[in-house]
Structure formats: structure tokens, C-alpha cells
């Protein structure tokens, strides 16, 4: 049964790695190593292939309904790869329009941990998903963003009977100025513990290469600030949750609502995270972050997967608040087109990074947005002619 989980996972990963390599990562580097006079394709993409890893964990809290304790942990591995990027000059508007089409994917392992059962029936739930994302920037101020992320969230015992779920986002963003943009749209999400279609309403105040406040309802509210040339901080508030299917345990303690007779149960959770995250970026290819804070307004529910079998008075169970910790890293590959001072492209990156694949409501740092560096001239140490010779013509030397 477990082979049926891992085979699609490995196929997806291999497929994703092939695509990212062709998107300009490894393949470009290999081409450069070979003596070949055929013209090299120009860099096409603004968004580079990225892999990210995130782990999240809460401490155990009392679960009075079961007379035990509850904790939650998850590890998420994901990627996005540009499949196709088109840049076109619009003669009438005198702007470059861009269209980005990406393949996204993630594989999450979630573990609700009920103390009495750590060594017996604590379910490990697998949530693989693969999706598509399209972003169109008209070269002026308007950007459209569409993301479709189908996924399953099952334990190993129910993988033969998966429930396919779809999360999606359709969003319009307007970059009014360097310091202000707004976005409206619709999303279908499971982060509130059920499938909900919700409106999106958001504003950004402040420049993306400086201190800015992002209010992106209902997904998150964050205040983001640079802490140095390689460090960034973010104070945030966001919902987190999901819907997961697993086999009803032989031990009835997992089914606290009487009358659940279905073999497959849905575990649903919803909670709010308030925390602080610090990220360190080593150049534009690698970033690592650590965060922590409080988990509040926590609720869980167990339901039969079949609606007809659900107990009429099933209700959400409130849990105590807890703390959380999370670690993560992001790796990006390949070259990208220049987009310095391209404010609309900055918003494209922010959208792409703040909406990570998989409807897990996680985000990665904006590593691609160049920081203002007014001391760059002073920081150029030991500059040699070798470093700049591509910029010069022989005539420049006279």
C-alpha cells in the first residue's frame, strides 16, 4: 500500500527535476561547460525554479475530550517550475507584457499526535498535490494570477480510496505605486478545516524592497522588514488547517463522536498562528528561516467521510492554545531575466512567493526582489578588469 504513495511521489519528483533542469538550471550550466559554438538560448524566465522545505510543529496540549494530549506536526516539500514564459512588446502601450506558466507541486506529511496512541494508531497523513499556475502582467499596473492545486490527503490505509480535492485562487492585483498595491479575487481553500469559497481582499503598504505591511485576507497579515543585507524578519498572523482522511482505528478512542460507522474518517483542523519569522538569504539562490509563536483558537473535529453517516450533533472541539516552531529552506536555480525597479514584477514575485503550492498557507522569502544597495560602489572590492571586460568595447579604453 505504501508503494502506491511513494511511486507517484518519485515520478512527480523526477518529472519536476527534469522540467526544472530544462527550465534553465542544470542544463544551462552543462551547456556552458561544453565547447559548442551554437548560440545559447537567451534567458526566458523571470521566475526561477524553486524547491522548498518546511517543517512545523506544536507542543502537546490537553485534549479533554479524549482525556489525553494533542500535538500536530507536518513536513512539507514542494516546488514550482516555470514551464513557459512569454515576454512581448506591446507597441500601442509601449510596455513589455509577460505571461508565466508554472508547474507546482508539493508533498506534505501531517501527523496529528494523540499521546496515548503514539505507538499504536496515530495516523501519518500524506498530502501530495500537483498543480498549475498562470500569471499575466500587462506591463503597466495590472496582474492576473490563477492557481489550481488538486491534492489528496490520506493515510496509507485509505490511499486505495482517495478523495481528490481542489484548492484554487483567482486574483487580480494592481500595482498602484512603489508603496501601494491592492488585490481582489476568490479562492477555494481548506485551511479553515472545510472546503470554503472565500473572497480575497488585500493591500500592500510600503515598498517590497523595504519595510511593508501585507494585508491579504483571508490568508495572512504580515509586517515584513529587512534586518540587514542578508536577514529579513516577518511578524505574521494567519490561519492554518486542513481536511485529512484516514482509516478509523480499531481503537475507538479516535472516533469520539458516537455513531461513526464509516471505515474512513475525516480529521479536520483549524487554528490561527501569530508569530515571528527570521530568514537568512545567502545570495538569491538559498534562504533558510526559522519561526515561532502562538497557536490560538484551535479546533478539531472528526467526521465520517460519508455525509450520510455523520452524526447530527458533531461539533468542533476547542483545544488549548499552544506554541509552534517552524523551520524551512528555499533553493532556487538558474538565471532569470532582469527586473530591477520593475515594480509590477516585484508584485508578481510577492504573489508567487506568498502563495506556496499546496493550500498549506505557507510562504517563502522574497529572495528574487533585489534590495536597494546604495553602498554597492563602496562594496566593490578588488575590482579587476576581468570582472567588467564584457561591459567594455576597445574604444571605451581611450
Amino acid at each position, binding site marked *: 500500500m505504501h508503494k502506491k504513495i511513494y511511486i507517484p511521489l518519485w515520478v512527480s519528483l523526477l518529472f519536476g527535476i527534469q522540467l526544472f533542469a530544462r527550465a534553465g538550471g542544470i542544463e544551462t550550466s552543462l551547456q556552458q561547460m561544453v565547447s559548442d559554438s551554437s548560440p545559447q538560448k537567451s534567458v526566458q524566465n523571470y521566475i526561477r525554479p524553486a524547491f522548498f*522545505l518546511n517543517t512545523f510543529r506544536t507542543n502537546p496540549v490537553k485534549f479533554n475530550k479524549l482525556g489525553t494530549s494533542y500535538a500536530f506536526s507536518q513536513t512539507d516539500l514542494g516546488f514550482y517550475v516555470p514551464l513557459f514564459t512569454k515576454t512581448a512588446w506591446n507597441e500601442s502601450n509601449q510596455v513589455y507584457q509577460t505571461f508565466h506558466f508554472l508547474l507546482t507541486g508539493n508533498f506534505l506529511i501531517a501527523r496529528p499526535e494523540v499521546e496515548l496512541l503514539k505507538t499504536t494508531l496515530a495516523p*501519518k497523513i500524506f498530502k501530495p498535490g500537483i498543480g498549475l499556475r498562470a500569471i499575466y502582467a500587462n506591463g503597466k499596473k495590472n496582474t492576473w494570477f490563477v492557481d489550481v492545486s488538486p491534492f489528496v490527503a490520506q493515510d496509507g490505509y485509505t490511499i486505495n480510496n482517495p478523495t481528490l480535492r481542489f484548492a484554487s485562487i483567482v486574483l487580480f492585483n494592481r500595482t498602484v505605486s512603489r508603496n501601494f498595491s491592492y488585490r481582489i479575487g476568490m479562492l477555494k481553500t481548506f485551511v479553515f478545516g472545510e472546503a470554503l469559497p472565500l473572497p480575497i481582499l488585500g493591500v500592500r503598504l510600503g515598498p517590497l524592497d523595504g519595510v511593508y505591511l501585507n494585508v491579504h485576507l483571508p490568508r495572512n497579515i504580515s509586517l515584513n522588514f529587512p534586518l540587514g543585507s542578508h536577514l529579513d524578519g516577518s511578524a505574521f498572523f494567519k490561519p492554518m488547517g486542513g481536511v485529512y482522511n484516514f482509516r478509523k482505528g480499531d481503537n475507538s478512542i479516535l472516533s469520539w463522536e458516537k455513531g461513526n460507522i464509516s471505515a474512513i474518517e475525516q480529521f479536520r483542523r483549524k487554528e490561527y498562528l501569530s508569530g515571528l519569522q527570521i530568514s537568512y538569504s545567502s545570495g538569491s539562490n*538559498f534562504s533558510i528561516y526559522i519561526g515561532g509563536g502562538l497557536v490560538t483558537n484551535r479546533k478539531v473535529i472528526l467526521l465520517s467521510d460519508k455525509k450520510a453517516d455523520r452524526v447530527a450533533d458533531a461539533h468542533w472541539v476547542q483545544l488549548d492554545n499552544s506554541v509552534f516552531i517552524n523551520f524551512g529552506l528555499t533553493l532556487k536555480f538558474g538565471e532569470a531575466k532582469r527586473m530591477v525597479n520593475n515594480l509590477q514584477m516585484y508584485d508578481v514575485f510577492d504573489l508567487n512567493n506568498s502563495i506556496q503550492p499546496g493550500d498549506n498557507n505557507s510562504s517563502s522569502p522574497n529572495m528574487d526582489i533585489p534590495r536597494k544597495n546604495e553602498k554597492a560602489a563602496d562594496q566593490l572590492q578588488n575590482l579587476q578588469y576581468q570582472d567588467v571586460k564584457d561591459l567594455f568595447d576597445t574604444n571605451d579604453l581611450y
Partner: protein
Amino acid sequence: MLDMIINTTKMKIKPIFIALLLALFSSLLLRAQGVDDAADKKDKIEAFKVSFLTQKLKLSPEEARIFWPVYNQYQDELENVRKNWKRESTSFKGSIETMSDKEIEKLVDGEIIFRQNEMDVKKKFHLQLKKVLPLRKLALLYRAEEDFKRELLKKIQEKAPSR
């Protein structure tokens, strides 16, 4: 069976944390040793050029919003032409004295084709930049680009050992 799965998961979590810590440590170590690789220098040169041009052109926010995407595309296409020529020219082995006539013809023709390609890019973007910038600012841009190269040469000469 389930015990094995659960214990395997626990074992897998530890390598993840170790990998994260190693990645952070090695990255910090490289930075502490002052490893200033070519990519980092290139980023700094780009940043220097951007701040230099920003200072010289004094564009309004609306002019900057339109100008920079066009200028970035211009720089990308120019860099692509130069990279292609660099790859082609460095693929020739040996010196002019030892190369065959065919190779020499390919080399000298390639030089002219490169110059033409470069000029084609410059002409294309000159027409686009004329539409997005006032003429005086376009003239300032070209002058600022030349001034920037002189600034870079000054920096190189400042660091050169005195004889």
C-alpha cells in the same frame, strides 16, 4: 509494521534538521571567509549601475515605472548577444598563426556578425527608449552609461598597484 513506519518517520525528521543546520553553517562560514564570487561581484556591479543611473537620470516615478522594464529587457538582449559571441570566440583553439584559413574566416566573420547583432539590439531599443523617455533624458542615459564605465575603470585603476 506501524511501529516501523513511525520509527522510520522519526529517523527521517532528524536528518532534515541536521541538513538545515549544515546548510546554514556552511553558508555562514563561506560568508565569514569573505568569499566574493563572480556572481556576487556581478550583482554589486549591477546594483552600482542602477544607483548610478537613478542618480543621473532623476526620473519621475511614472517615467521610472515605464523606463526600467524596457531598459532591463535591453540589457538582457545585449548580454545575450555578448555571451553568445564570447562562447563562440573562446571555442577557437590555438593562435592566429596556427589556425586554419577556415577557422580564421569564421573568427573574423563572427566578429563582424557580433558587432552587427549588438548594433541591431541597440537600434531596436533606441527606438523603444525614444518612445518611453523624453529626448533629453535619453541623451542623459547614454552619457550616464559612458560615465559609469569610466567610474568602473577608475575603481580598477584605484586598486592597481603603483609602479
